[in-house]
């Protein structure tokens, strides 16, 4: 390696790094129990989906007026969180910001898990999931749904590549070191490591590829959330018919994604005992990043609500009054205050950027982000241009049914399962990159 930084003050050696990071993958008892728990949840909630398949979407709380509900709100949330992969490993990576090294893989794992399940959530929301292939057979490129399908699959592919490619040197290490791994896993490490032995030529090629993907994923990442926002902005409904939805959604996605990453960082640090790698510095920096993206999001919120609120056109008037002091006020203000404004105020103080406090704050931010999506999707559907009349009482309100909630729990359990499994079979902190960033010499045997 000719571009190694100078050896910094550190008590870490390459052997210690390898041991610290690989050890918890094979020796974490609770992990198996957690996986069993998640699979149980998925099976039980899978039953709820079976009922929905059998009896139709009528088992949900959705009706003719609120025809998009919990599922779509959750879909938007999942797409939002997945954007953290692009923010951390490519935008900050391209800017050569070095503190992201130990957390970039966690960011990619989150991205892959959330965007994969987001695609599934859309299928769960379909009235005729048996006809899903019609999207390929009869697909019309004039429909934003086709754009969404295209960019989501592309983002999933590129995110998966951005997870695996930078991991190749680590997989070469796994192949050698994880002697207790099952034959299937050994085979997987063997295949995915592609015979990497860290020669200068291999190193150069690999990093060229990674950088190309990092550039590629920026427009794709922007596209997935912009197109998702267009599913709403392309309609003529009050509350959705606005021009800033694209950047507004992207800014909100960075908030949700950063919060999710901080929570994941905390759990991996504690459960995998990675205090030497995911250090207070990473939490401190992520705290500052969260403040920055929250401020940008706050700015978009001001534009989104104050400008129409100042004019109060007839349609907006009903919609905004419902949000500001009507039926939706608690959810709206909770998501704004607990999910954005209060976290900004707290996180500008250094002491709140310590691991535990910032993790707790991030839980609020993430929950706020989820409810914000709910507030974006449902109230608009309740206030169409023409009055809702001559329909049963339950068409005028929307409460998600137990089945709907179970299916949503299923999607969350699936995300957690994917994250857990990926973190069990792959090192969550990059071994080689961490060593290189600390100026420690890396040796990978053939």
């Amino acid at each position: 390696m000719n571009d190694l930084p100078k050896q910094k003050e550190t008590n870490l050696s390459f052997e210690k790094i390898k041991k610290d990071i690989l050890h918890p993958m094979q020796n974490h008892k609770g992990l198996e129990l957690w996986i069993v728990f998640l699979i149980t949840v998925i099976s039980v909630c899978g039953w709820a989906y079976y009922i929905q398949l059998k009896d139709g979407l009528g088992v949900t709380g959705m009706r003719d007026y609120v025809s998009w509900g919990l599922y779509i709100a959750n879909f938007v949330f999942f797409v939002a969180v997945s954007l953290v992969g692009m923010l951390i490993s490519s935008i900050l990576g391209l800017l050569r910001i070095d503190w992201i090294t130990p957390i970039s893989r966690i960011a990619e794992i989150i991205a892959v898990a959330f965007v994969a399940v987001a695609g599934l959530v859309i299928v769960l929301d379909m009235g005729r999931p048996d006809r899903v292939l019609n999207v390929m057979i009869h697909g019309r490129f004039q429909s934003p749904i086709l754009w969404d399908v295209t960019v989501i699959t592309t983002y999933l592919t590129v995110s998966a590549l951005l997870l695996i490619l930078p991991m190749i040197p680590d997989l070469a290490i796994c192949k050698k070191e994880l002697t207790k791994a099952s034959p299937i896993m050994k085979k997987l490490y063997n295949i995915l490591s592609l015979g990497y032995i860290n020669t200068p030529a291999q190193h150069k090629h690999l990093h060229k590829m990674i950088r190309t993907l990092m550039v590629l994923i920026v427009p794709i990442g922007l596209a997935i959330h912009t197109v998702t926002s267009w599913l709403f902005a392309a309609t003529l409904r009050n509350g959705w018919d606005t021009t800033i939805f694209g950047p507004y959604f992207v800014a909100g996605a960075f908030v949700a994604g950063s919060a999710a990453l901080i929570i994941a960082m905390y759990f991996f640090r504690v459960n995998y005992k990675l205090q030497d790698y995911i250090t207070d510095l990473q939490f401190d920096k992520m705290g500052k990043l969260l403040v920055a993206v929250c401020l940008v999001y706050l700015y978009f919120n001001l534009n989104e609500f104050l400008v129409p609120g100042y004019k109060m056109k007839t349609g907006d008037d009903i919609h905004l009054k419902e949000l500001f002091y009507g039926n939706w006020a608690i959810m709206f203000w909770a998501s704004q205050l607990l999910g954005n404004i209060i976290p900004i105020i707290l996180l500008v103080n250094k002491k709140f950027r310590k691991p535990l406090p910032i993790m707790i704050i991030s839980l609020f931010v993430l929950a706020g982000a989820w409810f914000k999506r709910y507030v974006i999707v449902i109230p608009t559907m309740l206030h169409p241009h023409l009055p809702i009349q001559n329909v049963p009482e339950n068409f005028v309100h929307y409460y998600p049914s137990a089945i709907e909630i179970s299916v949503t729990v299923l999607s969350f359990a699936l995300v957690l399962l994917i994250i857990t499994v990926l973190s069990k079979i792959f090192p969550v902190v990059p071994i080689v990159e961490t060593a290189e960033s600390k100026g420690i010499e890396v040796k990978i045997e053939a």
Partner: protein
Amino acid sequence: MKEETSNNSRRKFLKSFGISVGAAGVVSSFSLIGAAKAAAKKPAEMVNLLTQDGQLVQVDKNQLRPTVNEPLDELQKRGREGIPGKSFVMVIDLSKCRNARKCMDACQNHHQLRADQHHINVLQMQDAEHTAPYFMPKPCQHCDNPPCTKVCPVDATFKRQDGIVLIDNERCIGCRFCIAACPYSARIFQWTEPKDAEKYKDLTYNIEANVPQKKGTVSKCLFSADRLREDKLPSCVSACPNGVYYFGDQNEDAVTNGTTGETVRFSKLIEENAGYTLMEELGTKPRVYYLPPKNRAFEFNGDLLNEENLH
């Protein structure tokens, strides 16, 4: 009562149409290879069938398949093409509507809908606090710039050459984007098994009436496209007892009142009565025109606007 009989005859027509085309399909698809194969097997029960060119032929009963494909394909094809040379328009005279709701009943009958499912819905409107309320029947506006067909990912809802916006529930994937996109709330979704699903399950799907309805797909007003093919007026137009509806062809510049049977010039009717379209500012270019509720033929009962009475 009149509506029911016309509905029955339509069903009878559909049924006989299905059987005759179906039989023709079976006969024409009776190929030599199939016959050779059948001959190789043990002789089975034979049935006599008449071919299209009048020959009586014998067919192995095992070879008979209830073909629904051919008539379905035919219905789908002509349903997507529309009626050449036509440009359908509807005019709704708000000054005449007394909220009799015969249009809603006839529509629900025709399209196999439940009482809470509306292809056409008579709304009680009040534009501003001190303006006079009025009743407004609201079918699909069959826009010339339809926001719904634009967003459909699979071309399940589309605009035909005769101006009608149709929905193909054999193709619809149930994403409900069109419902979100429609500013007139004109679309409904079959959340559960549709009304009388068991009864109609063998009926060949007719895209121009969107029956039988299918679970998990979208439905909407079709201007009774199946009736237009038979030179009849849409169900709602014919059912109105108060002369609210005019329906016709813009190319001929003629619309017929469904109650009186009187045919008038479309352009003159619109011009003289200050006709307008709903929410023009959205740029959807509706094919449904409204005449303002001026000199209403009745006193509006103010109580009806009470929210409680609307559900």
